[in-house]
């Protein structure tokens, strides 16, 4: 028997801001502006989080700088009722889904209350053990399918995450049961200091999907239109019973791995510089300028609005009373064990 596959790829918007009109998803101008505004907002949030960390106002933080298109372009393709299982770098996904920014800061400052998704949003807390969130999305999609709900599940992970056993177990199961789930791999070329080529000898990460019996596609992860289009199609397919898709967003981690990392130890400045012209915001701005959707004044307005929103979030996060120590026990189990009850009493 011969098996063959074609590594599909998609890019629509190039670095000069030129879009391939034949591939362009139909997006009204207002939606394009909304995408741009979400990108600016996310970047503003990210910058603020980094400086809050430097000032000791939040703990270790993982920046998404450079990955805004991968995160926002994909998240926009989901409904609020869908189930999202992020890893730890997806702050722009949370923001796009409508998760309050002050809660994200609350979480990164070490307060679990920030990880309690507001009612109506099915978005899991940040997942720290790499790749372990993949089977959760698979399970949620099994549940959605069993219940006859229209919800799809989506899981985010990195290039490093694809080396984990849970990637294999999760995608394999999703293929076998033809589940309504979308896997989004943000291949940002690095897993801390380990380069992409050390994670896998596969030419692309997206091609791994074919070994699980479903489609994979590699998209330009800095091209928000390509990410949006590929994800929308995957979501439509999943909702219609067509099964899972693996989307590899080919992007770059512009920042250090986290605030606890110094990437100059393991990657060259030239490499980082070479990705700067590929910036996802820059090319969207150029595109919008050509269409008359962008000018300096608009830019200023968007920046100011974003700054205000982020400042408000910071103020709110920092004005919250600290969590109660009893919360440690309160959420351990539905009802505390006799031991927990005693520990709480003696506290």
């Amino acid at each position, binding site marked *: 028997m011969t098996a063959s596959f074609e590594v599909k790829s998609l890019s629509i918007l190039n670095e000069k801001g030129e879009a391939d009109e034949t591939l362009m998803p139909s997006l009204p101008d207002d939606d394009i502006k909304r995408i741009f505004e979400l990108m600016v907002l996310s970047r503003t949030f990210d910058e603020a989080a980094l400086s809050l960390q430097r000032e000791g106002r939040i703990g270790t933080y993982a920046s998404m700088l450079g990955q805004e298109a991968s995160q926002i372009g994909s998240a926009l393709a989901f409904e609020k009722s869908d*189930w999202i*299982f992020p890893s730890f770098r997806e702050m722009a996904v949370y923001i796009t889904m409508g998760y309050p920014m002050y809660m994200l800061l609350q979480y990164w400052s070490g307060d*679990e*209350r920030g*990880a*309690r*998704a507001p009612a109506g949003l099915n978005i*899991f*807390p940040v997942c*720290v*053990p790499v790749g*372990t969130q*993949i*089977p*959760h*999305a*698979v*399970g*949620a*999609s*099994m*549940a*959605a399918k*069993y*219940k006859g709900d229209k919800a799809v*599940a989506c899981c985010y992970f990195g290039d490093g995450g694809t080396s984990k*056993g*849970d990637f*294999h*177990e*999760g995608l*394999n*199961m999703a293929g*076998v*049961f033809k589940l309504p789930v979308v896997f989004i791999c943000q291949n940002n070329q690095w897993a801390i200091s380990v380069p992409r080529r050390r994670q896998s000898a596969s030419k692309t990460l997206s091609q791994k999907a074919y070994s699980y019996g479903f489609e994979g596609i590699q998209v330009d992860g800095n091209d928000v239109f390509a990410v949006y289009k590929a994800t929308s199609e995957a979501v439509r397919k999943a909702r219609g019973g067509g099964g899972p898709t693996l989307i590899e967003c080919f992007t770059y981690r512009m920042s250090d791995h986290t605030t606890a990392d110094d990437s100059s130890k393991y990657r060259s400045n030239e490499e980082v510089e070479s990705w700067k012209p590929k910036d996802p915001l820059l090319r969207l701005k150029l595109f919008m300028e050509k269409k008359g959707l962008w000018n300096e004044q608009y830019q200023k307005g968007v920046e100011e609005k974003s700054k205000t929103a982020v400042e408000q979030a910071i103020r709110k996060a920092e004005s919250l009373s600290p969590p109660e120590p009893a*919360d*440690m026990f*309160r*959420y*351990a*189990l*539905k009802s505390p*064990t*006799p*031991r927990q009850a005693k520990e709480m009493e003696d506290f």
Partner: protein
Amino acid sequence: MANLNMVQAINSALREEMRRDGDVIVIGEDVGADGGVFRATEGLLHEFGAERVMDTPLAESGIAGAAVGMAAYGLKPVAEIQFMGFIYPAVDQIFSHAARIRSRSRGRFTCPLVIRTPYGAGIKAPELHSESTEAMFCHMQGIKVVVPSGPYNAKGLLISAIRDPDPVIFLESTRLYRSVKEEVPEGEYEIPLGQARIVREGTEVTLIAWGGMLRKAIEASEGFDAEVIDMMTLTPIDEEAIYRSVKKTGRVVIVHEAPKTCGFGAELSASIAEYAMLHLKSPIFRVTGYDTVMPLPKLEDYYVPSADRIRRAIEEAMKY
């Protein structure tokens, strides 16, 4: 009432709960047409269909992880791990996620799942088919560990475990699966989690055992004025039942088939020392598996506590 062995009692619990609640789903390896390698899920596929009795690929972490996602979504998955010796790949999912999601999402997402797995020696099975690593799960907070000691309590405990709002590890002693029959009520009934039971009352020594060791402890207690406690649930631990008995008898012998070091007996001993020390007349004795790797069947009977070894420990305790 029907005279059932433990496999049949477990099957009956699963059937009752699946009939009662459409959110109860069985997943695992060979749980469908095969009915599980021990036949605990026999007939469920026929009655409930493949959407509710899912044969999964051979992937323990995937099974446990998918169960976490299903449970968070609103189902009540009952996952079967084929043997306790193969649960280790799933431990990451159990410890890092099932045990923590309620806490880390501050109650927004919960994990009402049951992981059933056969444990312990007694059926002369191949390597890694006879493990008793219950203490590992008892150490981890956010999950409950339940070990039935016979058909009657297996059914009631499993029904409670399925209805419990938090993750439960349900350990089924392979030696008990077919060796004992008991009268088991036909309908649904619950045996509350977190409660030990006094199997035999006595005044001079307390024997504490669970699962596959309970019957050995009872056998060894013949001829002594011994109180025998069946833990049934290891965590949450029923401390009151233990202290009450120890305060009465002043002597304790703890029996488990896992190795001594950091076994659950260590927790029991430390707790008794902490809260009932002044009532003790003798040191606390532990009769356990040895601090070695679980041997293959030829040496199995030397490894697992025998009634004889338990009897000698009782005699030691009675010297004080």
